[in-house]
């Protein structure tokens, strides 16, 4: 698990250390840098993944910002040569990368890189050379690709490092978009099970349901597996709006398929509307509610065995009403809490979220260390800062309840009682 990240000179983040839990929510005004924080995590992941090329960056869900603009640029401060990402993982694993760019080079390149485990050096490179597991690598490393990805297959890297890095290297930022979910637009699925915006939904739903069926208890007497509990809880997300009673994938009859779909000949996702006549109760994704589609997307990335175990979901409240936003975030907390205690091979393990919907906060127990909320603001110099939202030290739940006047965190947000959460509007 990524426990801590020190971000230096990345976009609007001048210097910010973040200590993470399993579920992490960033809130704050528009333009304060919430997405930049998700991208900083993504860039750290790219350093351990296939590299820093355009396609590698895009596949992670980062915006394809010119490399020179990835580095901070603030008034009255000299333009930096590098940006730095300093990550601490569980089990004492530490990874640090300094990336450089110039106007003559469209790509970010490694300036230096190092990995230590419990203070023992595993690999590293700088302008003085490179080495891995004690062997020199001078001149043999690609400059826009991390060392770990280049040597993991051939060198003996400690198993715990490989586990942590493999998991983190798959981090992506999901930003589901209605047109992709509805099938009005088609696009690539760079990594299974589903594209970052919802591309390939039918295939993802099909394989998800297959897994769900595989884990379905054979009879009522059969002991329910932990994997089934996660899968079933996530499937139930889709029922939350109250109108759908079933979903699946089928070849729809052309006359019952919208002419607006990008591909009418392929399989599409359908929902059964429990209020409609039995002969006409299959609604395609095109005609279904946006919120239901979003919940289906969330169910897949949370519980599909092929989904990354560490990911970000930008705007978790997308298309959801306040109550459903809370329920979805509660579900994310449930899954991450479940996978914390047992490795099931499926289920998200660490999630990063942003939200503008106050009720997302109501799904968090701020006294619980695995659940963290960060208020993102700009300081007087315009630097992005992120402060963990915590009750004052020594405060018990009961005392804090009195101090809050019995209000939910969402109400505190709306009442302006969470400094910075409403943004510092200049209007």
């Amino acid at each position, binding site marked *: 698990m990524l426990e801590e990240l020190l971000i230096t000179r990345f976009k609007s983040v001048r210097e910010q250390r973040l200590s993470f839990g399993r579920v992490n929510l960033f809130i704050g005004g528009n333009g304060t840098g919430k997405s930049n924080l998700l991208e900083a995590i993504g860039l750290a992941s790219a350093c351990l993944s296939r590299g820093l090329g355009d396609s590698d960056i895009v596949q992670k869900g980062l915006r394809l910002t010119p490399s020179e603009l990835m580095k901070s640029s603030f008034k009255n401060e000299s333009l930096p040569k590098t940006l730095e990402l300093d990550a601490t993982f569980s089990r004492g694993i530490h990874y640090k990368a300094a990336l450089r760019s110039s106007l003559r080079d469209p790509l970010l390149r490694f300036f230096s890189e190092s990995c230590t485990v419990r203070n023992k050096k595993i690999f590293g490179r700088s302008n003085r050379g490179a080495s891995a597991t004690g062997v020199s690598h001078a001149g043999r490393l690609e400059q826009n690709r991390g060392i770990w990805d280049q040597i993991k297959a051939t060198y003996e890297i400690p198993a715990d490092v490989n586990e942590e890095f493999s998991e983190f290297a798959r981090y992506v930022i999901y930003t589901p978009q209605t047109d992709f979910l509805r099938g009005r637009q088609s696009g690539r699925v760079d990594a299974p099970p589903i594209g970052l915006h919802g591309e390939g939904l039918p295939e993802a739903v099909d394989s998800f349901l297959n897994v769900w069926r595989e884990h379905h208890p054979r009879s009522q007497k059969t002991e329910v597996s932990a994997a089934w509990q996660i899968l079933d809880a996530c499937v139930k997300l889709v029922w939350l709006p109250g109108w759908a009673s079933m979903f699946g994938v089928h070849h729809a009859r052309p006359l019952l398929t919208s002419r607006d779909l990008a591909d009418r000949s392929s399989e599409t996702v359908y929902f059964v509307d429990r209020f409609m006549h039995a002969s006409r109760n299959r609604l395609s994704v095109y005609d279904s509610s946006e919120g239901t589609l979003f919940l289906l997307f969330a169910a897949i990335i949370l519980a599909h065995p092929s989904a990354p175990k560490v990911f970000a979901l930008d705007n978790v409240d997308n298309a959801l009403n306040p109550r459903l936003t809370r329920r979805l975030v509660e579900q994310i907390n449930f899954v991450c809490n479940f996978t914390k205690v047992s490795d099931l091979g499926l289920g998200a393990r660490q999630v990063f979220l942003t939200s503008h919907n106050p009720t997302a906060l109501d799904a968090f127990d701020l006294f619980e260390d695995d659940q963290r909320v960060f*208020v993102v603001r700009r300081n007087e110099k315009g630097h992005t*800062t992120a*402060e*963990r*939202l*915590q*009750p*004052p*030290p020594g405060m018990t739940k009961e005392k*804090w309840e*009195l*101090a*809050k*006047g019995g*209000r939910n965190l969402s109400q*505190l947000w*709306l*009442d*302006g*009682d*969470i*400094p*910075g959460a409403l943004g510092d509007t200049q209007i």
Partner: protein
Amino acid sequence: MRVGVVCEGPSDYPAISIFLADALQRRSITAEVRPVFPELDRTRPEGGWGNVLLWLKRNPPETRIAKYFNGGLFAGELATTPLDALVFHLDADIVDDELFRGYVKKTYEHEVALHNQPAERAGSIKQVLRLAADLENLTQTDVQKHVLAVAVEATESWCVAAFHAQPGEYEVLRGQALIDAFMTVLERSEGRQPQGNYANIDKNADRRRRFCRKHAAGSERLIQTCDQFKEAVDALEVLAANRGLR
């Protein structure tokens, strides 16, 4: 000295904040005054006693103390700078309001006394504020931080008093007389010829702010003519002295 203001509405805030800050400055106390009530939604009335009494209900003593006097509800960088005082404003003209009287009776089991004299009318309102703020159950230190500022009959009376060069009996102005007096000084202040026979008071907060800023120095006359204003300033001065803020 950091002072938060809970008042009936946005148009009352300029008079309270600007005149109080000026009066305190004349006593060598620099006050940073800020509003503490949230932005109201468009459905709610622009002002009124309900804003203050319901705010007090939503912010019981434990909340007020934690939020405003002890650094806020959160730790670290999200802690807020504590206030030295909270000023609670109500207009005295609500003494005659049946809805107000009924609410107070039902909520606090208290009969609002009907009076005619300015000081007594203010006394009736202060009694309601004490009940609403539950001051009886607070320590003396925390009670001192709750400053009651009752405008007799309304903050518009303070504006009229601040405008006029000569002291007068501005606390007895009520109803149409107060509307005319206020609108007249507002128009004069902006260099316009007063029209007379005004239907309503202009509650535009920006216009009120401009007026109060222009006549901030009138706080000196307010001290002489509006006893309740003087009382609030005195209370803040004592608090500042106790906290070594002069």
